[in-house]
C-alpha cells in the first residue's frame, strides 16, 4: 500500500506540470526560487561550521524556528494543497493507524520535504565539531524532519476542516486584511532596527526563547552540546522528541476523526426583504446594480478586491516613505491609486459571474444596461472616495492648490478606467475563481494570456488618464501657476465622462453581440 500511495503522490506532483504553458512557467519560476532559497540556506548552515558555537546556535535556532513555523502556518493561511486529504480515502476501508502512517510517508514525496531534508542535513554539517555534537545533531535532523512533515499534514487537515464552509473561507479574507494592515507597520519597524548594533542582541533573545519551545528545541540541542552543555542538549532533544510524538498523536487522531466526521454544514441565515433591490429602481440597470452591490458585499471574491484597493496604496506609500520620499508628495498618491485599482478590478467581471450569466442572455438584457449596472458599486465607492479623500490628501500635503488636479486625475483614472474595464470584460474575459471557491484558489482552468490582459488593462487605464496627469505634473512643477491645476480638473473630468460613456456603449455592443460566446466561455472554464 505504501508503494501505491507514494505512486499517487508522484502522479499528483507530475500532473502539476500538465497545465497551460503560462502556468507551467509560473511553477518553474517558483520552483527555481524555492531551490535557490533552499540552496542558500544549506550553504549558509554549512558555512556556520567555522563560526563560534553560541553565534552559530543563535542563527540556526532563529532560522530553523522560522522554517518550522512556516510548515505549521503556511497551510493554515493559504488552505494549502491537501490533495491527500484523509477524508478522500474514507470509503476504502483502510484502518486509521495504517492510513495515518501511509499518508505521512506519502508526504515524503514533495519539494517541501526534500528542502527540509537538505536543511536538516546541512544542520548536521554546522555541528560537525566533536562526536557528541554530531550524534545529537543527527538525532535533531531526524526530529526536525519528522516534526516538519507531521506539522504540515496536521495543519493542512486543520485548515481543510476550518475552511470547509463558505462563511469560514470568507472570514479568512478578513483575517488576511488585518494581517496585511499589520504587516505594513511591521515592515517599517524592521526597516528601522539598527542591524549593525541591535541585530545580534535581538537574534540572541529570539534564539534563547525559541530554543526551549517545541519549534526551536531540535535546532538548539546540538548548539548546547557544542557549547559543552550536554545536559541542556539532552533536555532539548527530549522536548523535540515529545513535540514530534505529540504531532503524531494529533495526526493519528485527526485521521481517525476525519474518516468518520461528516462534512461541516453551515447554518443558513435568513434575510428579510429585498435588500438593495428594494432601494434601487425596478429597471434592468437598477436590478443589475443591486445585484452587483449585493455580490460586492456577500461574495468573498469581491472582498479580495475591496482589500486590495486600500492595501495597495498603503504598501506603495510605505515603500516610498522608506525610500525617503517627502510627505507632501506621498499624500497625493493614495486617492488616485485607489481609484485606479477600483476601476481596474472590474476588468474581468463577467467571468466571475460564471455560467449564471445565462439569465441575462435568456432575458435579452441590453448590453449597455449590463455594463452600466455592473459599474455602480465601483462608482458608489469611488465618487465619495474622491470627494472626501482629495481634500484630506491636499490638506496633508500642505498645498491646497493641488486639490483641483487631484480631483481631475482621480476622476479620470476612475471613470476612464471603468469605461476601459467595461469593454475588456465583454471582449477579453479570462478564467476567474469560481463562485463559492476560496478567493485565493487558483482558477480551475487557465486560458492563455490572463496576465497579459491584466497588465495591458492596467497600463492602458493609466495611459487614458495621461492628459490629466500631464497637466497635474505641470502644476506641481510650476507652483504658483494655478491654471495647470484647473486644466487638469477640466480635462480629467471631461475625458473621464466621455470615455466612460464610450466604454458603456462600445462594451454594450460587444456584449450584446458576443453574449452567447461569453456564456460558452464561462462553461468551458
Amino acid at each position, binding site marked *: 500500500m505504501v508503494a501505491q500511495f507514494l505512486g499517487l503522490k508522484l502522479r499528483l506532483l507530475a500532473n502539476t506540470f500538465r497545465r497551460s504553458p503560462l502556468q507551467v512557467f509560473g511553477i518553474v519560476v517558483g520552483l527555481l526560487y524555492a531551490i535557490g532559497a533552499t540552496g542558500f540556506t544549506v550553504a549558509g548552515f554549512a558555512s556556520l561550521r567555522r563560526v563560534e558555537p553560541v553565534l552559530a546556535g543563535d542563527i540556526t535556532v532563529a532560522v530553523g524556528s522560522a522554517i518550522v513555523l512556516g510548515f505549521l502556518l503556511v497551510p493554515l493561511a493559504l488552505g494549502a494543497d491537501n490533495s491527500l486529504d484523509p477524508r478522500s480515502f474514507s470509503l476504502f476501508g483502510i484502518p486509521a493507524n495504517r492510513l495515518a502512517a501511509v499518508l505521512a510517508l506519502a508526504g515524503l514525496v514533495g519539494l517541501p520535504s526534500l528542502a527540509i531534508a537538505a536543511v536538516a542535513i546541512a544542520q548536521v554539517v554546522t555541528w560537525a565539531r566533536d562526536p557528541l555534537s554530531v550524534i545529537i545533531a543527527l538525532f535533531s535532523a531526524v526530529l526536525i524532519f519528522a516534526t516538519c512533515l507531521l506539522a504540515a499534514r496536521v495543519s493542512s487537515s486543520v485548515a481543510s476542516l476550518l475552511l470547509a464552509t463558505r462563511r469560514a473561507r470568507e472570514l479568512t479574507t478578513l483575517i488576511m486584511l488585518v494581517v496585511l494592515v499589520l504587516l505594513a507597520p511591521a515592515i517599517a519597524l524592521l526597516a528601522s532596527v539598527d542591524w549593525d548594533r541591535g541585530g545580534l542582541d535581538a537574534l540572541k533573545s529570539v534564539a534563547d526563547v525559541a530554543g526551549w519551545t517545541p519549534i526551536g528545541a531540535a535546532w538548539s540541542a546540538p548548539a548546547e552540546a557544542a557549547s559543552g552543555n550536554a545536559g541542556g542538549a539532552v533536555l532539548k532533544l527530549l522536548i523535540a522528541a515529545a513535540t514530534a510524538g505529540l504531532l503524531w498523536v494529533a495526526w493519528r487522531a485527526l485521521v481517525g476523526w476525519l474518516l468518520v466526521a461528516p462534512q461541516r454544514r453551515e447554518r443558513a441565515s435568513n434575510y428579510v*426583504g429585498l435588500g438593495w433591490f428594494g432601494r434601487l429602481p425596478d429597471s434592468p440597470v437598477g436590478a443589475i446594480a443591486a445585484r452587483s452591490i449585493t455580490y460586492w458585499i456577500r461574495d468573498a471574491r469581491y472582498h479580495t478586491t475591496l482589500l486590495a484597493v486600500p492595501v495597495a496604496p498603503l504598501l506603495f506609500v510605505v515603500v516610498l516613505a522608506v525610500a525617503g520620499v517627502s510627505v507632501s508628495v506621498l499624500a497625493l498618491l493614495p486617492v488616485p491609486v485607489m481609484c485606479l485599482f477600483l476601476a481596474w478590478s472590474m476588468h474581468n467581471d463577467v467571468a466571475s459571474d460564471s455560467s449564471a450569466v445565462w439569465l441575462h442572455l435568456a*432575458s435579452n438584457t441590453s448590453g449597455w444596461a449590463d455594463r452600466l449596472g455592473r459599474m455602480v458599486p465601483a462608482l458608489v465607492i469611488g465618487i465619495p472616495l474622491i470627494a472626501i479623500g482629495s481634500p484630506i490628501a491636499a490638506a496633508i500635503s500642505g498645498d491646497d492648490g493641488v486639490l483641483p488636479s487631484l480631483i481631475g486625475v482621480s476622476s479620470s483614472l476612475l471613470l476612464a478606467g471603468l469605461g476601459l474595464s467595461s469593454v475588456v470584460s465583454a471582449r477579453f474575459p479570462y478564467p476567474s475563481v469560481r*463562485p463559492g471557491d476560496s478567493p485565493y484558489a487558483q482558477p480551475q482552468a487557465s486560458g492563455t494570456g490572463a496576465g497579459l490582459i491584466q497588465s495591458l488593462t492596467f497600463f492602458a487605464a493609466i495611459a487614458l488618464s495621461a492628459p490629466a496627469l500631464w497637466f497635474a505634473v505641470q502644476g506641481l512643477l510650476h507652483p504658483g501657476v494655478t491654471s495647470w491645476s484647473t486644466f487638469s480638473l477640466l480635462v480629467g473630468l471631461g475625458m473621464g465622462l466621455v470615455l466612460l460613456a464610450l466604454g458603456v456603449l462600445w462594451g454594450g455592443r460587444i456584449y450584446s453581440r458576443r453574449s452567447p460566446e461569453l456564456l460558452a466561455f464561462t462553461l468551458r472554464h
Partner: protein
Amino acid sequence: MLVVSDLVKRFADTVAVNHVSLRVPAGTMFGIVGPNGAGKTTTLSMVTGLLRPDEGSILVHGADVWMDPAAAKRAMGVLPDRLRLFDRLTGSQLLYYAGTLRGLDARTVKQRSTDLAVAFGLEDALGRLVSDYSAGMTKKIALACAMIHSPRLLVLDEPFESVDPVSAANITTILQRYVAAGGTVVLSSHSMDLIQRICDLVAIVVSGEVLTTGTMEDVRGGGSLEERFLELAGGRKTAEGMEWLHSFSD
C-alpha cells in the same frame, strides 16, 4: 408555437446535433427523451438562445430566436440544466432579479413572487441564500424564475431532476393548467413514465438525431414509451461476465 428547422451544432469533430427539426403547436406539452449525451441539452440551449447554432433556424411564435431575439426571448421562459444561478442572492432577490430583467415592475414581481413561492412550496426559503438551497429547491426556484414573466412558451431542461414527488406533482399540475390555458411547454426528462403521463407530443433523440416524433399514441404504438425508447435507442446489454459480483468478497 415553436418551429425548429434543420438545427446543426458541431463541437470540434463531433456533431452534437444533426439536422434536428421539431414542431410544437401552441397549447401542447412536448417531451424530448434520449439517452445521456444524445444532444437534448445542446438542442434546448440553441432553442433558448444560449448557444449559437451552426445551421438551422428556430421560430418562437413567428420570431426567429437568433434574428429577432428581443421578441422571441420575451415569449420564452427558460430553465437550463446545469448552469449556475446568481446564488448569493436570496430566493426573493433572485425572483425579483429575474422579473425585473424581464421588464416587470416591482409591484407585479412581488405579487407574482408570493404566488410562485406558495405554488412551489418555497415560502420559508425565500429569505435564504440560493447557495444554501438543496438541489431540488434550487430547481424549483429556477423554475419559478422561468415563469415569472408569464411567457407563452416554457423551455424546461430536466425540470423534475432531484425534485421530490410532492413538488413534482405540484409542478405537473401547474404545467398542465398552463397548457390548458394555451401555453406551450417543451421539456426534457429521463423519466419515461412521467413523459408518457403528461406529454401530448414526444420526440426520441439519439446521437443528435430525431429518431421519431409525433403524438404520444403514435410513438408508443402498442407498448409503453419506455419499451419503444429502449427499442429505438438500443444499447441494452445483457449482464454476462459479471458473475464475480455475486461472489461477495468477504
